[in-house]
Structures are given as C-alpha cells and as structure tokens.
C-alpha cells in the first residue's frame, strides 16, 4: 500500500545557492501527484529531497522535515532505509548494462539478500508484469542485457526494478521526457495502474500529462511551491495569478 508524505518547511541548497524555500505539502496516499513548473525551478531537487538523494551530492544541504506515514525520514531513518521505501525513476532510463534484464530487476532484491532464486524470479516476473514489460521480454529476460532494450522498454525496466523492492512511494522525475509518444502513453497508462498500490509523485513539464494522470498538482516557481491543489482546480481555476500565467503559456 502507498503511504502519504507530509513535507514541512523544507529548504534545500546546492552550495550557497538556496534552491528550495520553505516547501510545505501533503502528498496523499495512493494517488498520483504531479509537480509542474518551468525548468530550473527546483522540481528535481524537491523529489530528490523526498528519498534523501539530494544529500548524496557533496555540496548539497537540506533542512526541514519530511514524514512518511508519520515517521520523519531525516531524523528517524537511515538514508538507505528511506530509499527502500521510496523508489525512484529517473529522467533518462538508467538500466545496468552489465546485467541481464532479470538481474536488473533483481538488483534491489539482492541488496537485502535472503531470497531463494525461485522467489526472486517470481518477484521479478511480477514486477515486469506490473511494469507492462513482461510480454515483450519473457523469452529473453535471462539472456539479454538491460541495455539492449529500446528507450521506452528501458524506462519500464527501470520502473520494474523500482517496484521489485516493493516501495510505498514511487518518485518519477520526468520519466517520459526522453521517450517517443507511444512509449510515453504506455508509461502514463502504467501510472494509472500503479496508483492502486503506490503513492506516485511525478515531475513533468508536460501539462497535458499532468492533467491526464494526476489527481493533485503542485506548481513550483523559483524554488517556491506557488500552489498545490486538485489537478482540475489548478488547470481550470487556479488561485494564483502566476499559476494561471504558467498554464496558459504566458511564460516558461
């Protein structure tokens, strides 16, 4: 099951560059939440704060609180544990080229260990099915490298890899921006399916995509969360003038 995320007073820096300012947001469980905004406004930085990837950059710094189902990710959990509960899919598909498709999906499972090979295969098959990739790879998944797939398939492989360790939240940072329209619509369909079991946070600069997949939408501008509301509200009747300017294409 998915879990809700509660962010309070979140600030983030790269060096002396103050990137995120006092972000507060309640991301509901088992829904898709879209984050939109012009590029460079801090969307990626924000999602990377949610699974504590931001701090892996040596010059990066964070303050504030992020709670997952009531537990503070920064004070009560190790980063490694956080990332096992909050999975991430990146903008560019990044399968491990030296591993087979199966090994790619199993890579997260191998970290925790303790699984028999049979169990591992079952979980990987299930994850590949959930990522709508199984039919395309079922004959080659033990033989072919993860990098031998097409871009769209690679991205679904990365989704399967993230799902295999059964996280509660799935962060997707512009998961379809490097893909063709058909692959993009496959990923969007997938997000619809996955909502039942996961909380989804998707960064996109494609507003139609946000409108199609997400119940809630947040608009970022220059490191501030300008507005966060139901997607229909944001796109039809935004409360803030800047949101309206953005969605009507007056800037960005």
């Amino acid at each position, binding site marked *: 099951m998915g879990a809700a995320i509660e962010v309070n007073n979140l600030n983030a820096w790269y060096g002396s560059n103050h990137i995120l300012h006092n972000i507060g947001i309640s991301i509901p469980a088992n829904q898709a939440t879209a984050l939109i905004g012009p590029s460079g406004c801090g969307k990626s930085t924000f999602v990377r704060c949610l699974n504590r*990837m931001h701090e892996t950059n040596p010059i990066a710094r964070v303050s504030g609180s992020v709670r997952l189902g009531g537990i503070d990710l920064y004070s009560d959990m190790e980063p490694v544990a956080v990332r096992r509960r909050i999975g991430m899919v990146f903008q560019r598909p990044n*399968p491990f080229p030296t*591993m087979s498709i199966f*090994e790619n999906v199993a890579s*997260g499972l191998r970290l*925790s260990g303790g699984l028999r090979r049979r169990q591992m295969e079952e979980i990987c098959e299930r994850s590949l099915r959930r990522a709508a990739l199984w039919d395309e790879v079922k004959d080659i998944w033990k033989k*072919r490298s993860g990098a031998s797939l097409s871009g769209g398939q690679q991205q679904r492989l990365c989704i399967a890899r993230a799902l295999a360790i059964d996280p509660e939240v799935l962060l997707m940072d512009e998961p379809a921006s490097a893909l063709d329209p058909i692959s993009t619509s496959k990923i969007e369909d997938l997000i619809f399916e996955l909502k039942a079991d996961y909380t989804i946070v998707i960064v996109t600069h494609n507003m139609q995509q946000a409108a199609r997949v997400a119940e809630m939408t947040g608009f970022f501008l220059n490191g501030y969360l300008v507005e966060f509301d139901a997607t229909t509200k944001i796109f039809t009747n935004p409360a803030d003038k800047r949101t309206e300017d953005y969605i009507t294409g007056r800037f960005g």
Partner: protein
Amino acid sequence: MGNVVISTPGMPLPSEKLFRKQTLVERLRKGDEAVHLLTMAGGWSIILITGLLVHHLWVYSRIARHQFGWHFLVTSTWDPVNGLFGAWPFVYGTVVTSLLALIIAIPIGLGAAIFLAELAPRSVSNALTFLIELLAAVPSVVYGLIGIFLLIPALTAIMPTFQKFFGWIPIFSGTFYGVSYFSASVILAIMVVPFIVSISREVLLAVPIAQREAMMALGATKWEVTWRTVVPYARQGIMGSVFLALARALGETMAVTMVIGNVAQVSTSLMAPGYTIAAVIANEFTEATGDLYLHALIELGLVLFAVTMIINALARLLMLSVRTGEVVS
C-alpha cells in the same frame, strides 16, 4: 539562402558540376580527405613496421630455426659452447614471472584505484595519483636496485619463517637464495601497479553518475554501489589496464635480470632462480659468437613476440566475450 534552380525539360542544368562525382583532387582540397589520408597512412605505417619487424626476426633466426625446428621451444638446454639451444626455461620464466606479478598487482592496483576514485576526497586522490604516476616514470634499473638492496634482503629475512609454514607446498619449497622467480615477480608487480591504478581510477571516475544513482535509489550502501555497479560498468577499462600491465611485465628486461638470478633452468619452486626471454637476449647478445648463437637469440625475440601476441589475443577474446554483454545467468 541557396539558389533555386528551375529547370525546363531538355535544357541542361546550369551547374552540372554540382552533380558530378568529385575528383580526388577536389575532395583533397576540402580537408576531410586529407585527414583521412593522413590517418590512413599512420595506420598503415604501424602495420608496415610490425611486418618488417617480424620479417627481420624471421630471416635472422633462420639458422637456429633450421637446426632445431619446433624442438627449440620445448628443450631446456642452453649451451652456447656446444651449440645447443632450447628456449623453454626462458619462455617459462617469462610467463611465470609475468602472471605471478599480475596476481600480486591486480588486487593491490584495483584496491588502490577504488580507494582513489570512490573513497578518497578528490584533492587527496589527485595528489596520490600524481605520485603513483611518477612511479611509472622511474627507470627500470632503479627498480632493479630497489630489488637488490631492499626487496631481496627483506624477503631473505622473512622467508625462513614463511617456509616453515608453507614450505611443503611445491611452489614455495627449496632453499631461498634471494634471486628468484618470486623476487622478480614482486619487483614486476611493483612496476606495473601504477598502470593498473592510474588507468582503472580514470575509468572508475568516468562511470556515469546516473549508474551510481540508479543503484543508490534502490537502497544500496556506498560500498554496494561501488561493487555492484561502478566496478562492473568499468570492467572493460579495468581489464585494459591489466593487459597493459601484462605487456609491460612480459617485456621488462633490466629490473628482472637484476633479481631473477639468470639461470637457464625450469623449476616448479618460485623460490628458485630462473631467467626470462628479454633478460637473456639483453645479457648475451653482445657476446654471442657464431651465427647459430646469434640466430638462436633472435629466434628468442621471435618467440617473445609470439608469446606477447598470443597472450594479448587471448586477452582480447576475453574482453570481447565480456563486451557483447549477452549476460548468462
């Protein structure tokens, strides 16, 4: 904007020249072609030089080749006085010392490269790498001296204790006099470690951040990221560094001849003295009297060339099987 050519049927196009295939001179003038020719000449000259080299080795070893045939490779007598020449002790010594050197150097070199690329702060890493790369520039005769004055006394001091426990293993048995396959291998290992470290560090550093983050986002620790993603991703380059080290070890002459003992014999024990191809050529070439002796030494050169080629070819094959990435589980 380009000119738009409107043609009426039957009328010749105004600039037919544009559609004609360009002559070589025209293409040459455009530069691309010149670069192409230059690089091609470079490529061919390498092949030409290699060909000439093999040709000369072949021609000037003919007396020995006719006299001994294939037996040259497998016989162990090296007796210039009676005109008997067999290459086996040298081939054996070359291969054994080089492989043992790699066995010692790979874990040390790879470990150091991982430390420098993944763990050490960048400033420390750069400073240490600079020092290590300086080591690669030290003349090999200096390594030979280090072998004689530091390594051999040290080994001689610890060997009795070591042999008390491991002397029963054939490769560690027998009296240790200092000069030996083992001493030569250790010196070779010290000499090739810098190659492994500096190249492997470069390829480790070049692993894309996206690969690291992919593993990190699955909840991997730093060590797991390094070991499961970074090192496998860089394995081709790491292997490349090992092959370079191997090539260096196979051909190393001066440092080896100073510590291996220069005895043309074949011993199972690494504690025994031996000889290598490069060392014997260097030592005996100037005093080779008679054509047969000279031709035997040149045939040794041919053999070294062949050994290097074969080992490199095997290495390439290994690398190719890795590169195709058809991972078998």
